[in-house]
């Protein structure tokens, strides 16, 4: 991994100088804020009825107005919404090199391509972790501001663990998006792939085969409402792990052996 630390510094600079982190921060903020709104609505049944469609949606998503219900909403957000945001981050980090034409500066360097791709994956992980920290911190702040009932250290620990473990599983299943950014040479193919997998995850989940379809697994793990997947089995974890490794390995291999004719 010659040049890994140099490549990491360069990747961090590219992210810092972009508006994308701010945009994703705003997107990550939506979950705790909307979740908080649902908790506020559900706290009063009359209020939920008066709010019309929003109230109905809040009743569908939230099982009640307390800390466990709020953490359940945040966990769903970390997996389903997180998948879209993580895929966007991956598409930006990998695909932008092609759409901006800057990839040519990464190919004939003393720093190896493996080091550069490794640095990109680390930046993706750090970026997504920062998003999760934002969700977590904002979630605690919103929950405290609403004075939600049902708080205990055990509930908080369980909620945070579920949220972060769901996000970790989600992060693993977005690695193929990085491969698609290379194969598709830009943003479109990876984001299209991510949307397709999100839809497929719903369909496969409904058919009862979600435990074997990598993109159906994180949401049931986070106890997403409406998911038919149930608890994640050992096979499910293995499927997610294999998908993550295969996506990452495929990305490394593609960058090492593909033709860069554009």
């Amino acid at each position, binding site marked *: 991994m010659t*040049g890994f630390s140099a490549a990491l510094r360069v990747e961090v*600079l590219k992210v810092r100088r972009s508006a994308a982190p701010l945009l994703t921060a705003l997107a990550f903020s939506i979950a705790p804020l909307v979740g908080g709104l649902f908790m506020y609505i559900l706290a009063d049944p009359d209020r939920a009825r008066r709010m019309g469609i929003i109230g109905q949606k809040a009743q569908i998503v939230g099982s009640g107005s307390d800390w466990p219900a709020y953490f359940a909403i945040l966990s769903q957000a970390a997996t389903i919404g997180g998948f879209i945001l993580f895929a966007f981050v991956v598409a930006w980090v990998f695909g932008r090199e092609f759409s901006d034409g800057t990839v040519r500066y990464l190919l004939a*360097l003393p720093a190896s391509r493996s080091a550069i791709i490794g640095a990109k994956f680390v930046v993706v992980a750090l970026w997504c972790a920062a998003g999760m920290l934002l969700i977590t911190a904002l979630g605690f702040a919103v929950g405290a501001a609403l004075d939600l009932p049902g708080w205990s250290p055990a509930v908080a620990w369980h909620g945070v663990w579920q949220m972060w473990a769901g996000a970790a599983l989600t992060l693993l299943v977005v690695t193929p998006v990085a491969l698609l950014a290379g194969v598709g040479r830009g943003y479109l193919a990876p984001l299209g792939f991510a949307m397709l997998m999100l839809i497929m995850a719903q369909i496969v989940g409904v058919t009862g085969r979600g435990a074997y379809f990598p993109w159906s697994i994180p949401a049931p793990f986070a106890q997403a409402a409406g998911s038919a997947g149930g608890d994640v089995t050992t096979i499910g974890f293995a499927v997610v792990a294999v998908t993550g490794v295969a996506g990452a390995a495929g990305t490394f291999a593609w960058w090492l052996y593909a*033709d860069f004719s554009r």
Partner: protein
Amino acid sequence: MSASTSHAIQTYGLTRRYRDVLAVDRLDLCIERGEIYGFLGLNGAGKTTTIRMLLGMIHPSGGRAALLGAQVRRGGRGPWDHVGYLVESPAPYPGLTVAENLWAAARLRGVDDAVVARVVERLGLAPYASRKARSLSQGNRQRLGLALALFHEPELLILDEPANGLDPAGVVEVRELLQALAADRGVTVLMSSHVLAEVDRLATRIGIIHEGRLIEEMSAAEMERRRALRLVVETRDTSAARRVLRAAGYRPEPGGDGLVLRDARAVARPDDVAATLAAAGHPPARLAVEQEDLEAHFLRLTAGGRGAAGGDPAPGVTTGRAVAS
């Protein structure tokens, strides 16, 4: 780098095929260290594909390449510490400033910032150091592209259209810079260009690629010889004029619509030729000292591909019609 070879670039039957299209066909290049090699070809001739293969960006379908004595392998470690390149148009990171683009490149090459500062000064980029790359003019973007190729003081420079987008002063600056690098530090330069006059002034050797094949190579000396001046004479009676000139000791050859004289004294004193013909009753209808330039030569060589030579010559370019090939 490797001291085992005097060649900066060597290719052996380098070939690249895209399905039915043979982009590069058994290319054998041998470029000595310290040379400035002009790589010419029409659009789609295979220049950029060759350059990308040299840089390990494209895997050859056949053959191989070595830079500075090291084999080029796709994705593998090459002699990249010692190679600078500009492929097609420069594409710096648009959200980074000029200084940040160079800083990033310096990190990836393990080069001190002081070296970067020198090249910023040398290429006149200092006033734009804190400007984002996306807001640079085309000329300054090109300068940044060149700075990214040059800052680490490479032994070999591979430049695709280095003068693209530069104003006339910038073209001269870059020419002088490349000449100085070759002369003072023995840097080898492979440059492709459509600005043939620039290649003509700069290159110590020229290779012309057409439809994927290297159809001609010539040194600067050979180029100079081919560019030899000649006197073109047109009269109403070409046969009679030829006899008169022969009798006067000249060696006229038929060419174009009249005669071509390559004798040094004819080129040096065309007025004597005119007087000789006028005295014999065959005054010249046209008398001109002409020189085939690189562009005319290039267009004639590549005429089969695009019909380019059949068109009008570029402004200021002598037509090749009177040139013996």
